[in-house]
């Protein structure tokens, strides 16, 4: 396989809050090839949005990239190493701020945010905002940019684009605004679009329309996507490959079919179990027990062991990395020591099931007394 368009390697992002350091993203690695649509799935708070914001270095204070490297099309967007004094620093290879802003942001990588109601500036016209970004990122004159904006609005299915060009965001519905933001991303002709839960705020029928639109546009433009979502249904519909995140780590990484039919990580299995299906009644729904622990104080060992039905004692001490556990290309990776690829004493270790329940309660009450 050719070199990936985007390669994220051991990325670590931490937030330095008054309560302590939050390890929002804790050493994740994934890549995106040209024309691929890669999913990033997980519960709220897993660190998905932080991970994708880091790609364009959009992390705001008190957050900071404290380790890892992000390469895009052969260039190093960021590389952070730890110095001899223990403080992380950006290496020489890291692209300077001005260059990143001028050559990468918008031009090479565009982003679509979760909430279309908040992503457009309420005091400027929709067309004007679109035009500004096109002008900036494609070196068009104002007139050319305007024409391009109108044609992109038509492309994403806005009726009467010339008339709507001068309208303000509040005159658009949520679905229409998200179409505008997709038009904005595509109009700058980037090689990669980061979509951060773009359909979460929309209702189901609009979501389906937007997904169809994106698939159709992706076929025609060949743009690569990183698609952040918490919805396994969306993953199944549009992704080529999927990364499952839990508490700042990637726990499973696989082509979409393998993920659904040969699930290798108990967390992914639990996520799939908790999706309502028409062939099951609501009583049979099997949500994941407990809530995701706080990233400020993650459990020892495997981070999922407090909620994992298959957890054993060995899981409380070993935090597995994401290793290849299946055969095939692209590879199927998982971070669970029950697989043979991990030389851990899983099979000989006593199950945690009953103890896990207890341990979970203890950690909960312990958390309360701490406060």
């Amino acid at each position, binding site marked *: 396989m050719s070199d990936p368009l985007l390669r994220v390697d051991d990325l670590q992002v931490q937030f330095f809050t008054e309560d302590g350091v939050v390890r929002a993203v804790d050493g994740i690695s994934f890549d995106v090839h040209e024309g691929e649509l890669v999913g990033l799935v997980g519960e709220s708070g897993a660190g998905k949005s932080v991970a994708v914001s880091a790609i364009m270095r959009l992390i705001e204070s008190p957050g900071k990239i404290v380790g890892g490297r992000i390469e895009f099309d052969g260039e190093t967007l960021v590389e952070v190493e730890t110095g001899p004094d223990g403080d992380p620093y950006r290496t020489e290879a890291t692209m300077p701020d001005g260059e990143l802003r001028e050559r990468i942001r918008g031009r090479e990588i*565009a982003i679509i945010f979760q909430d279309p109601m908040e992503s457009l*500036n309420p*005091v400027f016209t929709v067309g004007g905002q679109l035009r500004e970004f096109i002008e900036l990122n494609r070196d068009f004159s104002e007139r050319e940019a305007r024409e391009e904006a109108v044609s992109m609005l038509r492309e994403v299915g806005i009726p009467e684009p010339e008339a709507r060009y001068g309208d*303000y965001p509040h*005159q658009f519905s949520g679905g229409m605004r998200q179409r505008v933001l997709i038009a904005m991303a595509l109009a700058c002709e980037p090689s990669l679009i980061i979509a951060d839960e773009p359909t979460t705020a929309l209702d189901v029928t609009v979501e389906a329309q937007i997904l169809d639109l994106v698939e159709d546009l992706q076929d025609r433009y060949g743009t690569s996507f990183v698609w952040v979502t918490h919805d396994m249904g969306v993953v199944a519909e549009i992704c080529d490959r999927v990364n499952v995140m839990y508490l700042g780590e990637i726990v499973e990484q696989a082509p979409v079919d393998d993920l659904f039919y040969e699930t290798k990580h108990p967390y992914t299995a639990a996520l799939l179990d908790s999706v309502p299906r028409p062939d099951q009644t609501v009583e049979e729904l099997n949500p994941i027990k407990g809530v995701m622990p706080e990233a400020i104080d993650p459990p020892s060992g495997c981070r999922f062991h407090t909620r994992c039905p298959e957890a054993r004692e060995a899981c409380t001490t070993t935090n597995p990395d994401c290793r290849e556990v299946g055969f095939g290309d692209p590879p199927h990776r998982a971070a669970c020591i029950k697989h043979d690829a991990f030389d851990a004493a899983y099979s000989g270790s006593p199950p945690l099931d009953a103890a896990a329940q207890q341990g979970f309660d203890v950690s909960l009450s312990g958390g309360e007394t701490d406060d």
Partner: protein
Amino acid sequence: MSLIRYSTRRVLQAVPVLLGVVAITFALINAAPGNPVDIMLGPSPNQAAVETLKAKYGLDQPIHIRFWKYLVNLVQLDMGRSIYYDAPVTAKIAQRLPATLLLMGSSFAFAIAAAVPLGVVSAQRRNKPTDHLTRVVSLVGVSTPSFWIGLVLILVFSFHLGVLPATNLVMPWAPPSAVAGASTRLGVLVVAGEHLLLPMLSLGTLQMAAITRIERSSMLEVLSDDYVRLARAYGVKERTILRKHAFRNAQLPVITIIGLQLTTAIGGAVLTETVFEINGMGRLIVSSISRQDFPLVMGTTLVFAFVFVVGVILTDISYAYVDPRVSYGDQE
């Protein structure tokens, strides 16, 4: 044009508001104990003299008749005659209003000109020394009464340093012959500026501080909004983001505060005029209330109400100008 329709509607809505002000002021004055005749004639007056004076000023008529007559005259811009000064109320106001408008206008101009850049810079350099300094200055500014600032300024600049005058105002449009120490147009402007500086600072500091605080917090809020993050993600320069993508949105709460500051400024003008011995509307209204000069109280109150209503209308129209959502309902 939705903005024009909106503005027209706002102006028309002000008419019933002003009518309400007239009615309430009229009722309040008449509800207060005592009347001007009692004050003019002193204790145990001659009954016949009371009747004559009451008839002279129309006070013998029932209140609804007097109110109706007042309204009819008011529409013709006649506010009656001041009992104490024995002169038309409108003439008295025309004589006093310019000083107050000059004082309030200049203090607002000073407040806005200083507060907006301070607030923006403070937000941009959040938690850095510039920000801390601005925050301390604005906190002190909002917590210090304007008359105290005025007294300190007089003490320092007039009494000890002797560089600026402590009393009175000179109108910048006065003829050079009427101004002491000035022989040319420019000289008048300099003298007027010297007189204006201290009152302007003492009245404007509170507004400046209040606006700075709002400007800062409003900018901070907008700078973390999604559309600003989006602009950043599309490669827009920080300076353009500040100037274009964030600034306009951040002005909405600032405009509200400026409009509300108008009330405090009117109150502050009364105190400032007293401290600096400026013959303006503030002192006129206070003295006319203590003399129970009914027509003059009515006139001065109405003028202040009018200034305030105009300020509110301007606030609303600038609001609609900045944010297209405000006048959205007025579209055809």
